[in-house]
């Protein structure tokens, strides 16, 4: 690639390179072939790899996801595009009961090398059925891996890793990151799944986050000024697998931790993370670990209501200010 690819181009490049490297990799999804996908992520792949390996599907998500599981068991490495993450609810059986469990139920006799690409991204008035962040629901299911890249570098590296994985991986893209590029970030060395990354070092507070909330947090941190406001920002990158060593080291250093996610806060992934950090570092933290996620309501349509419900940089900054003043 001559110029730094944006997040969408990085995904396209990962698909291209994976398909070049291994002819068992196939793409399935609604309008992914000649149209190149609803957001254009798969553009050019149909022309390059042909109709056998890049296939449009009918609007039959449960059938397609189930077929991807069967194809994976029979020797392919399918990548399925679920047009919106919200739509996994119409095909949870192939995800939860089939893909996640078949290796286990067969005593390890089968590999399920399938990637379910799905995109989310609230904040654009897409309404309650096109705006949800359901990664916590997926991470709850043993057998599924859940990757949530926050920038183009990770989008490329983690998608390649997902396609090479012999387990089912839910690859959660954020559509609002599609146009973003970051030359400095692109120059980073690849980092494997399961390893959180310190995006911004700091000594006073730790923010643990992922997906689009990484840049929202960085922007929030930029607005802070004064003593005690040096924030360490950690991008989890993947919810499953997850090695919390980097997070624990940070929390032990700063003593304070805020977990920020776009998913609904109630029963959300932040609660799980807080519990795990407390279990390991209770006597090394200086105050309650806090969570900041979406309010517990369906994502509303009207822009002002949606801004009220979803976490954003101003509110993240306010939470961090209150931490510093505590």
């Amino acid at each position, binding site marked *: 690639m001559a110029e730094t690819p944006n997040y969408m181009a990085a995904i396209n490049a990962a698909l291209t390179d994976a398909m070049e490297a291994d002819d*068992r990799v*196939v793409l399935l999804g609604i309008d992914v072939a000649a149209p190149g996908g609803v957001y254009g992520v798969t553009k050019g792949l149909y022309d390059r790899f042909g109709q*056998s*390996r890049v*296939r449009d*599907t*009918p609007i*039959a*998500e*449960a*059938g*397609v*996801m*189930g*077929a*991807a*599981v*069967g*194809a*994976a*068991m*029979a*020797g*392919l490495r*399918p990548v399925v595009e679920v047009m919106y993450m919200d739509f996994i609810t119409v095909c949870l*059986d*192939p995800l939860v*009961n*089939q893909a996640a469990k*078949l*290796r*286990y*139920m*067969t*005593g*390890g*006799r*089968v*590999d*399920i*090398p399938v990637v379910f690409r799905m995109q989310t991204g609230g904040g654009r008035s897409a309404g309650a059925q096109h705006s949800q962040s359901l990664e916590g629901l997926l991470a709850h299911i*043993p*057998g599924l*891996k859940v990757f949530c890249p926050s920038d183009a570098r990770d989008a490329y590296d983690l998608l390649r890793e997902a396609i090479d*994985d*012999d*387990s089912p991986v839910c690859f959660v893209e954020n559509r609002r990151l599609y146009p973003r590029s970051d030359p400095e970030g692109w120059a980073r060395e690849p980092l494997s799944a399961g390893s959180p990354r310190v995006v911004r070092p700091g000594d006073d507070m730790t923010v643990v986050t992922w997906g689009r909330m990484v840049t929202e947090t960085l922007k929030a941190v930029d607005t802070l000024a004064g003593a005690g406001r040096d924030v360490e920002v950690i991008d989890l990158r993947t919810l499953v*697998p997850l090695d919390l060593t980097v997070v624990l080291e940070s929390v032990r250093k700063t003593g304070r931790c805020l977990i920020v996610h776009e998913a609904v806060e109630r029963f959300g992934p932040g609660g799980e993370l807080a519990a795990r950090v407390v279990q390991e570092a209770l006597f090394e933290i200086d105050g309650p670990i806090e969570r900041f996620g979406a309010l517990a309501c369906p994502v509303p349509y009207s822009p002002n209501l949606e801004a009220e419900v979803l976490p954003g940089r101003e509110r993240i900054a306010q939470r961090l200010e209150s931490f510093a003043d505590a």
Partner: protein
Amino acid sequence: MATRARRPKTNAELAGLYAVMTRIRAFEERVAKHFRAGDIHGFVHVSIGQEAVAAGSCAALDPADLITTTHRGHGHCIAKGADPEGMMAELFGRATGLCGGKGGSMHLADPRCGILGANGIVGAGIPIAAGAALAAQIRESGQVAVAFFGEGALHTGAFHEATSLAVAWRLPLVMLCECNGYAEFTATAAWGGPEPAARASSYGLSADVVDGSDVLAVRDAVKVAVAAARAGDGPRFVQAQTNRFGGHYEGDVQPYRSPEELEAQREQDPLARLRLTLPAQATEDADAEASAEMDKAVELALAAPYPELDTALEDIYG
């Protein structure tokens, strides 16, 4: 139902089909007995009365062909070549089980002989078989996939979505609808609507109806369907009319069925029908051999250890 030439070419071929059927029955009779005795746990669904569908269908397949089956899948697994010792040990929850004791009756699988799994979710195996057929098509492997399912699955979205896909992509898939007259406790007729084959035909599938208690009729119908699928003519549907002699699960006392109905169905016993066409000595020998084989499977299962506890957290991820 379609009439076909159904004379066996040789007695040996017929005897081979009989041997599979009597092995399935011997296996399941022991499963039912040991479930009642408490040696087998959870839920068990036997297919006694339906053996001709499994034996006839799998006789039409190559070893490399792929199947998915259902919660009532012991027969399909045996007919496709799974080892009954491993299956029995699996049902007994032992370490030597086909799936290390992690699957049980509803999740038997053995990819080494093309069995991509029984399934505890009605209809779920149909898209998986469609996907296996897709892999065969893309890899040009020449394999055919067969989805076994009951007529109860015709009401699931999985059936309709998988059928849409199979038709759209002309997949080498045979959809084998095993109609035993019931969906769990409810007679099929309760839901009205067209016959299974008619529903399939409405998708543009070629659909056939066959006497599922006649193993040769099943084999011949599936052979035709498999040949078409293998030749690239797209998916086929076979409706096999059969009878479930027992309840939905072991322990189901079937208050919803009359003794007369059960009696009439037993007259269709596919093994009894086949015995009429074979020398008595041949079937007696096959029965004795099957009994000995399955007794040994039970004996080995009972003697086998339960899985080591640390295996509970193995095989979750690749």
